[in-house]
């Protein structure tokens, strides 16, 4: 089945691969290779993640005490806004698609590169430009409106760098659009012979759905930012009730994108989890077609529910009713996925490697995050829980507990493929557990705090709530350690890690049939696909994992 024209040692890193194919700065900064662009993104995304995490640390330190002693309220506002903007626009939206997606979409479909490699590079430059503009605004003092920039505060009263930050977000938006465009075209036209739609890994299906949202939703935030800037500079009046405008219009336009944006954040992570669960149970995903279509369903229905962010804003009650019902409906495809993943685990041959630990964490944390989303989607409940810590806990469970954990799982899973090296499983498992424990300790108390009425975005709070806040801060410390550890041991693996070989986990996916790291043109032989996705049968030419043969048992 593997017709290799040259003899190469599949247990070793090949001599010529995409990493050492040219060492100059220009060969990296002007590259058209999607794998190098993915690495550029990995570096920049990690940097912004650390920056956002720094602001998170400031928030948690401030909230250890009931009074606003570490930070004045005005500064605190700028800190949580910076945290939000950096984490949402500079990390969560691009992280998985632009790093793991860029690297693996062509590999998984058997293509040489994405459809438009230069647009891919442009996408990274736009990301960096937007990030620098936002960072500049930050250094100048930042914005205190919250990452949601609500009018009329952002248009009339805020004294921060609203327009410049908005410009940064605008530029990053175009980076996102170009990535999405690239993925859709690539998945349509560049699949290898034999790679039909229903043989695609579910990672590809979820990236396809994500790209749909990127293309259809992001332009709306772009125009919203434009209108915000015009309103702020020129006082148009469309968001100003005194002149005849409506501040809720801003919220409608803003959330029309920002709600589907959260599906941009979660869908790629769900794609990774599908890969992890199937591959580490050595079993085909249960209900492949259902999981594939549920990704598309989430993308489409996700555009219909944005009003659930506006329940208490002044939106009409009837509209609130409609959006509430649709929010219930959008939970269904996500539930379908969770059920199918669980069914995949049943009677699978499960191995508890680090990526699988992250996948298990995801299952539990996404369940909590998703269910609490349903509580909030019920308009009656939302009246009490809106703008409290319950909301913060909910979205951190889905953003950090699901997206970031999926991201970490994916990085670990594909680390050997991207770098050719193995990381230390021991440290991997420790940090996965620290992340899980730290995360829950940080954010579970926040559900209770929200229920007890602690408002969000406040630097001070009632004294009775201090104990829970201290738990939360302690958890944040553990979480921080758990997240910094991978930086250390993954970097260390680059220098003294063992050579991983082509197929470190012994898996049937197309990306595992080329070397680690892959050569610049991805495959030594243009692949022809004749097997179904997640085909673990012996006829698939797969060597059985050593752990399972009689000799080692």
């Amino acid at each position: 089945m593997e017709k290799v024209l040259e003899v190469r040692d599949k247990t070793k890193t090949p001599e010529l691969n995409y990493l050492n194919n040219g060492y100059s700065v220009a060969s990296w900064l002007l590259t058209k290779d999607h794998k190098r662009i993915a690495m550029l993104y990995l570096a920049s995304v990690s940097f912004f993640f650390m920056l956002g995490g720094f602001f998170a640390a400031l928030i948690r330190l401030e909230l250890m005490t009931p009074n606003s002693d570490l930070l004045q309220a005005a500064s605190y506002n700028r800190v949580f806004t910076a945290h939000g903007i950096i984490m949402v626009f500079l990390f969560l939206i691009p992280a998985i698609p632009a790093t793991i997606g860029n690297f693996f979409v062509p590999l998984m479909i058997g293509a040489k590169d994405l459809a438009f490699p230069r647009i891919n590079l442009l996408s990274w430059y736009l990301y960096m430009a937007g990030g620098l503009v936002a960072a500049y605004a930050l250094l100048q003092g930042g914005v205190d409106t919250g990452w949601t920039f609500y009018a009329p505060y952002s248009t009339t009263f805020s004294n921060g760098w609203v327009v410049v930050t908005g410009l940064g977000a605008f530029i990053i938006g175009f980076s996102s659009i170009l990535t999405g465009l690239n993925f859709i075209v690539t998945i349509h036209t560049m699949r290898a012979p034999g790679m039909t739609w229903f043989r695609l890994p579910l990672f590809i299906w979820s990236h396809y759905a994500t790209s749909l949202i990127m293309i259809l939703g992001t332009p709306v935030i772009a125009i919203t930012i434009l209108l915000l800037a015009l309103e702020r500079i020129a006082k148009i009046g469309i968001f100003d009730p005194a002149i005849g405008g409506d501040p809720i219009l801003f919220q409608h336009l803003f959330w029309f994108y920002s709600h589907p944006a959260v599906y941009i954040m979660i869908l790629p992570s769900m794609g990774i989890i599908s890969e992890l669960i199937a591959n580490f149970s050595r079993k085909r995903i249960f209900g492949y077609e259902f999981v594939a279509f549920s990704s598309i369903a989430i993308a489409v229905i996700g555009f219909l529910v944005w009003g659930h962010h506006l329940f208490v804003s002044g939106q009409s009650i009837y509209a609130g009713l409609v959006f509430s019902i649709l929010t219930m409906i959008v939970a269904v495809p996500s539930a379908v996925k969770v059920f199918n993943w669980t069914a995949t685990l049943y009677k699978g041959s499960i191995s508890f490697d680090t990526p699988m630990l992250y996948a298990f964490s995801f299952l539990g944390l996404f369940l909590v995050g998703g269910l609490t989303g349903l509580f909030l989607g019920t308009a009656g409940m939302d009246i009490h829980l809106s703008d409290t810590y319950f909301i913060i806990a909910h979205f951190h469970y889905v953003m950090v507990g699901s997206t970031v954990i999926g991201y970490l799982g994916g990085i670990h899973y594909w680390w050997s493929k991207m770098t050719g090296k193995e990381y230390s499983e021991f440290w991997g498992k420790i940090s996965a557990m620290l992340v899980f424990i730290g995360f829950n300790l940080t954010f579970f108390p926040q559900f209770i705090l929200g229920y007890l009425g602690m408002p969000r975005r406040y630097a001070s709070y009632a004294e009775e709530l201090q104990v829970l806040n201290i738990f939360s801060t302690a958890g944040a410390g553990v979480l921080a350690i758990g997240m910094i550890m991978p930086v250390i041991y993954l970097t260390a693996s680059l220098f003294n890690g063992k050579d991983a070989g082509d197929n470190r986990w012994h898996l049937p996916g197309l990306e595992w049939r080329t070397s680690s790291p892959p050569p610049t043109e991805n495959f030594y032989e243009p692949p022809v696909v004749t097997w179904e996705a997640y085909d673990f049968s012996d006829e698939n030419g797969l060597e059985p994992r050593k752990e399972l043969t009689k000799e080692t048992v």
Partner: protein
Amino acid sequence: MSDTHAHDYHPPGLQHQFEDMKQQEESNIIGMWMFLAQEIMFFGGLFTAYLIFRSKYPMAFAAGSNHLDAFLGGLNTLVLIVSSLTMALTVYYAQKNNRNMQVIMIVLTMIFGTVFLGVKAVEYTDKYNHGLVPFATWNKKTKGEAQAKTEAPKEVKNFFASEGGKAPAGAKVEEKHDYINPTGQFQWNSQGESNELILEAQKGNFLTEDEKIGYFTNGEIDQKKFEGRVRIFFWIYFAMTGLHALHMIIGLGLMLWLLIMAWRGTYSAQYYSPVEISGLYWHFVDIVWIFLFPLLYLLGRHFIH
């Protein structure tokens, strides 16, 4: 690495990531349509704002749109339609390997595109002259006629009212000129007209709830409030047509690049994909205008002829 399908003949313009021209062309077309889908949603945000405000304040919008020159707008529509034709013909001639006609058609398209922008400039200047640009200081500052200098002004502004209307001895009395627009403010002058419109609507009972609150203070028509809502119309007008004009300018830039490449004979029946996708962009810009024209220029026109 071995290359089992070495291309003996490399079609011109085939990029390395594609297997053959067909795949590349297909990808280009899908890619451009994805970009256009994104553009539709981009303009869509402004159309949403238009939709909402027009539904809230139809009379203000009617009043505002009657101050736009529908003839020039219609002319622009025709100009763009002609340019769409020449663009489509460019693609046609590229497919027919006819370099000269391609170049002529591109030049014609660019000419019509420039005419469009020229007419737009005329319209914008007209707005500037009449004080209809909704941004303070961006209107023409106009002075009215100065009062006669020969006689001492009868009434100095109330500044000296406490002195019994007379300037204290030795004070310099300034002459008053009637400034219509001293700082280039947005001026909505046609009071009679809009009053008529509102009153007619009130009589026929087709003012919306927002209008009933929005135009009146204590039962009387409040000019300032009405002006605020007309100003929103003008903002939407400038934002939408401005964004559209920006896309036209980008389109002209694209045409220039296309012109250079066509002049060099780059495009042929085997390789005309860039012409085709530029055509798609150009037609899209035309379509946006096909909607902008009636929505902005025509919809209130039957109230006032």
